[in-house]
């Protein structure tokens, strides 16, 4: 606390000069007298009257006590008054010395608190028992040790954000960031885990991986669910890939086997954007969907926001997947080597110099080599075998606890090929798909003295996607290469006791070059009544075009904490001017020069989130937002699409609540509705205008609810049940009725659990149920005499469904602990009941018979991971 206090302002003394006083003296510099401690402690107040001799220059020549209030008060007043400066008195308009009587009042005032109080309890994560002797450190240097009942207290904490570390030799170190307000007490409860293998968890890295699942949400302050890294790896069916946990979250549809698509709240996969450390990347999973594009050891948290996300992000009509990576290890060398049937990977993280640490990781698939070695056939003829690799590297310079500069990059490569021979040249098929991307970034983050956070992230990216194939004599080529430029900068801080605000800039520019050859219907779009293995139309075209698109979106968001922090109102707004330039407005004919097209617009996108904590156990939430997404580069071809396409728009609205049923059991529900306008669809006209094969006349809507019942880790057991019910529809251009969206999935139910048996053994189980995707039925066929093939005649679009999906997966693992490392071996068995789940509908050559393409049979995956 600051010493003593202020006092009341003094009054001016009497005029002592005979000649006319034209201007009385005026205090120019007031010096506060320190309140005598003994008097303050006694709660005494007093007034000391003194006589002050003021010179013609305004200085104090002499001062003496006229009415004493006691030696302590007298001495304090005299010392302060001797330092006073006055504007000198004027007699007959001339500066003149003067003597005045002055009363100095000593008054005890209530001070506005300038520090916070920090108190809390430390408990055993497993059983909730209090833990004594746990050291609680603040990054200010203050610390405390928990007592016999687990309680600790630290007074005089500077306001702002501070890092809290809890440690004890036999405990897993826990770090958290807390925000302190002057005059307020922060009460926190920490559940920590033991290190020893006989207890709950293993002794993984010091930095726990957090999977932050945000069901309806906007910010980390709104409803979220966390899953520990070790928990995520133990979920059956993930084969140890932490980011695969996203597929088990509420709101996420079950993707077709091997597709790796992320379908959230009925939005198309391309409408949900994926960010790694703030940089947009084109996909989350490698081809086949078996592995994510980033090594699990590097992942700190993944956040799925199915809708209603805040002003910091935009340009996507669906949801967000945000992956944050860990800081490089600054204490010692950490790493791992892992191998299973599919791929091999390694990671290393270590300090390399004072205040400098680095991480590097790499992974490569080898399933193609394994299959070629154990099968005698040319396996590629029958099964496309994805080949992939990825790598990440970063160097961090951290001169202070809350300041760092990081240089990093990542790369990923995917390729899959297949060919189908046939005696009929028209049925010979071949296809090669590839997707490579690289990212490089420089990140700067620091915390300001008032607890604010500044972040600047410029980044560069290169994307190359290729599709080359032929169905008989009909070629299909779609090559798109792009260079991406991004800048994300923000400041977040407490601007008032009740208000935290963030302001920032999200800038992104993409320069693309594309080439396409083939049928306008290949690849098919969402909404096309595509029948599996149906030959594409053999009417073909070609085009090459370039696009440049850019948008720079300043945004601001405020978090108003009201009703003693029970109510949070978080309004935000994002102003997004956007432009797209296309190299060709219409197809070029002959030697005529190409004329480009330029489309621009500016949108104001409001966002709002509200969270109300009715009690410590019950929280309600709501969110609203308007969103926009520009046309894809692939769609602005003059021959295959429309260079004049405008942005599509969407509105999200959601409500929900979270209820803690007990210490370790919670349920969360969300009801949502999304609508979208100006979606890109095929032009239905019989005579479309040139360069208008696509239009902005589509509409969409989805509505539903999701539920999550979660058991936190306790006594070695954790699990959850996630259920989503929804309906997603589209209305195509020229249609009056809505039809089911291609990715509509009415029910999705996931139930999973994991149990630590002790002695390094653990087991897990996962059950899934999902409604099948809609499909368009074939109601007849006719013979095409030119191509000697049958063509299907179709019924109502998306009026039937693939049968429901049901699967049970189990996992078991054993961890061996050595002196400074550990080895985990695991067996992950998918579809343990060997159920024949239909994945797609297949027809015979004349479309008179229908059967299902079945997905995975029983599939055991064995793997091992050594960590050091």
């Amino acid at each position, binding site marked *: 606390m600051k010493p003593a206090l202020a006092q009341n302002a003094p009054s001016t003394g009497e005029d002592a000069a005979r000649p006319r006083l034209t201007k009385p003296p005026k205090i120019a510099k007031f010096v506060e007298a320190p309140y005598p401690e003994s008097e303050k402690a006694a709660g005494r107040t007093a007034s000391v009257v003194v006589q002050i001799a003021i010179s013609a220059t305004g200085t104090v020549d002499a001062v003496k006590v006229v009415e004493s209030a006691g030696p302590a008060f007298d001495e304090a007043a005299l010392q302060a008054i001797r330092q006073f400066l006055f504007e000198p008195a004027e007699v007959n308009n001339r500066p003149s010395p003067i003597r005045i009587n002055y009363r100095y009042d000593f008054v005890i005032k209530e001070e506005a608190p300038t520090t916070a109080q920090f108190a809390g309890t430390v408990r055993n994560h497993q059983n909730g028992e209090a833990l004594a002797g746990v050291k609680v450190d603040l990054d200010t240097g203050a610390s405390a040790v928990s007592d016999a009942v687990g309680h600790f207290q630290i007074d005089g904490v500077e306001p702002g954000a501070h890092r809290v570390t809890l440690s004890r030799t036999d405990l897993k170190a826990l770090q958290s960031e807390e925000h302190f307000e002057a005059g307020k007490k922060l009460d926190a409860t920490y559940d920590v885990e033991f290190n020893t293998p006989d207890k709950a968890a293993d002794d993984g890295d010091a930095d726990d991986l957090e999977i932050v699942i945000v069901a309806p949400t906007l910010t980390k302050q709104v409803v979220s669910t966390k899953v520990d890294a070790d928990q995520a790896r133990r979920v059956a069916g993930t084969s140890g890939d932490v980011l695969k946990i996203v597929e088990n979250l509420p709101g996420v549809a079950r993707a077709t086997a091997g597709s790796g698509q992320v379908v959230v709240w009925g939005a198309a996969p391309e409408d949900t954007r994926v960010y790694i450390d703030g940089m947009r990347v084109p996909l989350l999973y490698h081809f086949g969907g078996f592995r994510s594009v980033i090594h699990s050891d590097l992942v700190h948290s993944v956040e799925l926001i199915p809708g209603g996300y805040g002003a910091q992000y935009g340009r996507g009509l669906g949801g967000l997947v945000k992956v944050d990576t860990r800081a490089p290890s600054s204490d010692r060398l950490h790493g791992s080597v892992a191998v299973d049937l599919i791929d091999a990977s390694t990671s290393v993280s270590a300090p390399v110099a004072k205040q400098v640490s680095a991480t590097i990781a790499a992974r490569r698939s080898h*399933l193609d080599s394994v299959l070629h070695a154990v099968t005698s056939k040319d396996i590629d003829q029958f099964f496309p075998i994805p080949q992939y690799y990825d790598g990440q590297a970063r160097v961090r310079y951290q001169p202070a606890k809350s300041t760092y500069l990081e240089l990093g990059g990542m790369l990923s490569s995917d390729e899959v090929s297949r060919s189908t021979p046939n*005696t009929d040249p028209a049925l010979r098929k071949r296809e090669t798909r590839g997707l490579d991307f690289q990212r490089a970034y420089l990140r700067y983050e620091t915390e300001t003295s008032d607890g604010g956070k500044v972040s600047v992230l410029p980044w560069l990216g290169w994307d190359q996607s290729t599709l080359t194939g032929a169905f008989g004599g009909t070629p299909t080529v779609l090559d798109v290469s792009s260079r991406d430029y991004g800048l994300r900068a923000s400041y977040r801080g407490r601007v008032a006791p009740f208000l935290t605000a963030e302001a920032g800039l999200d800038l992104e520019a993409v320069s693309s070059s594309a080439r396409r050859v083939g049928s306008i219907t290949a690849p098919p779009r969402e909404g096309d009544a595509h029948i599996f293995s149906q030959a594409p139309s053999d009417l073909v075209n070609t085009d090459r075009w370039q696009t440049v698109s850019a948008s720079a979106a300043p945004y601001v968001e405020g978090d108003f904490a009201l009703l003693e922090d029970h109510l949070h109102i978080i309004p935000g707004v994002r102003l997004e001017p956007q432009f797209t330039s296309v190299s060709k407005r219409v197809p070029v004919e002959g030697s005529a020069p190409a004329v480009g097209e330029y489309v621009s617009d500016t949108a104001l996108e409001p966002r709002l989130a509200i969270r109300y904590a009715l009690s410590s156990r019950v929280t309600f939430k709501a969110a609203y937002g308007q969103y926009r997404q520009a046309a894809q580069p692939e769609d602005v071809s003059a021959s295959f699409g429309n260079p004049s396409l405008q942005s599509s728009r969407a509105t999200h609205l959601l409500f929900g609540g979270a209820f803690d049923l007990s210490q370790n059991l919670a349920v969360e529900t969300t009801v949502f509705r999304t609508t979208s306008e100006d979606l890109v669809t095929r032009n239905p006209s019989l005579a479309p205008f040139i360069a208008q094969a696509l239009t902005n006349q589509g509409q969409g809507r989805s509505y539903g609810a999701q539920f999550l019942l979660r058991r936190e880790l306790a006594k070695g057991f954790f699990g959850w049940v996630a259920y989503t019910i929804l309906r997603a529809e589209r209305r195509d251009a020229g249609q009056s009725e809505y039809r089911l969206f291609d990715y509509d999935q009415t029910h999705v139910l996931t139930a999973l659990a994991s149990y630590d048996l002790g002695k390094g053994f653990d087991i897990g189980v996962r059950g899934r149920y999902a409604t099948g995707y809609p499909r368009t039925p074939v109601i007849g066929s006719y*013979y095409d005499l030119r191509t000697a093939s049958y063509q299907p005649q179709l019924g109502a679009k998306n009026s039937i469904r693939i049968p429901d999906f049901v699967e049970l997966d189990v996992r078991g693992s054993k961890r061996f602990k050595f002196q400074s490392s550990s080895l985990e071996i695991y067996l992950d068995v998918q579809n343990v009941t060997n159920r024949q789940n239909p994945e797609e509908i297949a027809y015979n050559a004349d479309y008179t018979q229908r059967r299902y393409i079945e997905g*995975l049979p029983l599939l055991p995956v064995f793997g091992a991971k050594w960590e050091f």
Partner: protein
Amino acid sequence: MLACYPTSPARFAARTLSALALMLTAVGCVPTFDDNLSTISHASVLAVQAEPAEAAPGEKVQLTALVATPVVDAASSKLSWGLCLARKPLTELGPVNPVCLEQPGQDPSSITPLGEGASVSATLPQDTCRLFGPSSPESKNGEPAGRPVDPDPTGGFYQPFGVTLVDTSVTSLGSVRISCPPRGLDQEQAGAFTSQYRRNENPVLASLSVIDTEQTAVPDEPAKLTVKVGQTLPLRASWAACPSEPTCGDGICGALEDKVSCASDCTTPKGCTGAEPYAFIDENSVVQTRHESIRVSWFATAGSYAAAVTGREEAESAQTSTDNAWTAPAESGDVRLWLVIRDARGGQSFRSFVLSVQP
């Protein structure tokens, strides 16, 4: 193709790994079907030949159908024909507007009746290149130009028609290649293309022979080749070789030949009845020479073929034959074979043979 659910434990490891590969694809195990489209079980239109194989707007073509029936010498079936006038919307993934498959007379604005019979004459509409070709649809004042139809991989466009078996009301879709002015070329490019492009000629099956030491030809009717019940005949269908370079006097009016430079070949222009070379405009508007692929569809009233369709793709165009195998049925009697030969530019013709299956 490997089965999805192995019955042999001994191969479980390899199949498990293959199943793992299945998971990494967007497709699981594709089921197999016992299709036997080669065996004629009911009256079917198997082919329609247009003569000439390629015609310009306003020109006449003669359309002749091949109708197969399960009985070897059945009476011919009644056919009804209609010329389609309906443009295909971009939302249609099939080859034509679905109204083209309706019966003639139901929608006169969409289908022009051509009459009935095994063969009819049709005059191509004057606006066929606007409806189905590279000419832009008519636009109203102030509106942008319409989007022309995309060509097929050979650069061609087709006028659709329907042919209906009156007894069963089953309609099949046929097409006539239409000769339209090229689009998107400057004068020099158009001139180069026009001087080199030759209209399509229907391919002709030169012979069907048994692949044995004597290369025994399967005779035309009324002669019959005798085979035993259950016997497997390796068969070879052959067509004419086409010259890769135009040669005056070879009877074929090739690229860069005309009435002036080669009157003997081009006074009455005739193409090659095999895998013809043809001029093609690539994506850089450069005229290239490509070669047709040839496909042969095999049909029979009984027995079974190893493959329903065989052929040679463009890269194999120097080859002038394709092989198959036919297995005679277990019952004796006459069996009729039909072979339909098609080229990549929509031309087709057919031949029929009769085999006598003996015990």
